[in-house]
């Protein structure tokens, strides 16, 4: 049996993390390489980096970050944000990332998933999905709609249909973010996560809403997620990854306990 994965997520702009983490020792660290090492040593099962660098010219800074992370940690990590085609994917993978994630670009041009999967294998391609609850409409039978540009643009596409389509195109995994739950720290969107997870055969990473270990327990059981993304609950030192894992283990959820 596979262990459920706990995945910290770091937003990076111009080579620096946007939220410095405040550890229990009250030290702020804004260097993504140091933060990756910290989480690696704490037992993170994987790490996700989102590059939110606005200007395309400055993206080579991220490639350098990826290279330094790859020299420092020996677990898989993925990079998303601003990936527009196979050339961007290749640059990130060759710098040492295990996976790349595509989100808005794939909604606009779904073939990018197929081209990436063909060039590098399905296991490299993660579909990032931002989803909003809008209620059932004829074109949105599940009541969950795909949105892009950080939630600003609704696409008129049903989340379940898009998840299935992405799997058929060759996505190896889905990182499912609920726009409604994101930032609330009130828990993951369990209904959405379970719906998507049962609608596809590829692994689903739940994202958005994590505030305490009970939220991870719920999404990894009731929500049927294979992995849980966490951000502020560990960045600000409220919880450590080892504490979260100890809690989940105590709930009877299989997690990786030695690292």
């Amino acid at each position, binding site marked *: *049996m*596979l*262990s459920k*994965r706990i995945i910290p997520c770091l937003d990076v702009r111009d080579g620096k993390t946007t939220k410095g983490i405040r550890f229990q020792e009250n030290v702020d660290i804004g260097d993504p390489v140091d933060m990756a090492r910290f989480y*690696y040593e704490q037992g993170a*099962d994987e790490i996700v980096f989102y590059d939110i660098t606005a200007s395309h010219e400055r993206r080579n800074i991220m490639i350098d970050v990826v290279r330094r992370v*790859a*020299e420092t940690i*020996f*677990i*898989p990590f993925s990079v998303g944000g601003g990936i527009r085609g196979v050339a961007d994917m290749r640059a990130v*993978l*060759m710098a*040492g990332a*295990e996976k790349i994630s595509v989100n808005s670009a794939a909604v606009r041009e779904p073939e990018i998933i197929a081209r990436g999967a063909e060039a590098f*294998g*399905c*296991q490299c391609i993660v579909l990032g999905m931002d989803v909003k609850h809008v209620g059932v409409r004829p074109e949105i039978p599940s009541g969950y709609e795909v949105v892009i540009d950080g939630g600003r643009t609704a696409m008129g596409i049903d989340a379940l249909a898009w998840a299935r389509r992405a799997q058929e195109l060759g996505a*190896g*995994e889905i990182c499912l973010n609920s726009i409604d739950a994101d930032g609330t720290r009130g828990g993951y969107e369990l209904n959405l996560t379970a719906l998507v997870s049962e609608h596809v*055969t*590829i*692994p689903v990473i739940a994202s958005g809403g994590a505030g305490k270990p009970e939220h991870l327990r719920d999404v990894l059981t009731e929500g*049927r997620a*294979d*992995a849980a993304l966490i951000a502020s609950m560990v960045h600000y030192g409220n919880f450590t990854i080892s504490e979260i894992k100890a809690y989940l283990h105590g709930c009877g959820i299989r997690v*990786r*306990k*030695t*690292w």
Partner: protein
Amino acid sequence: MIAIIDYNAGNLASVARAVAHLGFACTVTADAGTIRAAERIIFPGVGAAGAAMDSLKRAGLDAVLVEQFAAGKPMLGICLGTQVIMGRSEENDTRCLGIVAGRVTAFPVRLRDADDRPLKIPHMGWNRIRVCVPHPLTAGIDSQDEFYFVHSYYPVPDEAARVMATTDYGIRFASVLGWRNLAATQFHLEKSGRPGLRMLANFCAWNPAV
């Protein structure tokens, strides 16, 4: 010097970085002379068996690997490398190197977990190994240690005695093989944290002649 075989099958830099992190000299190479001169060989890979064998043959490396195994050089297979050392793979119906007699087969469809939920294929993520034959490669590895897997096919040696450890995922399959101077893992020990690095270090220090 450790030669990491470069045959256009995925990102080999991560293996090289892990070996370098452990303090061993290595080079990623497709050059027969360099491979013959190396003290040991790591044969990694990600992708499909058919394309991998085509690339090995085009570069003439299939014969070099078989010859270097026969010469007794310590050799480590990782993931696709572990599948390509077998006799035949059902993936693309490919004839492989035949260093270990046996075949490579796909996970059966509709595998179920203990709660009768469908298991996802590829088998991707962290899983444990159960050591059945102690081998220098698995020295110091605990039964709770986990390793990072990404695969849809797995090796089935003809001789059960080649299986050093197994892993459970709906079925029980061979996750570590050992045969003379060859050791091979289905998982990515370069991406498996401390226990993976420990196994990689074990390989780098292994003297099969002793």
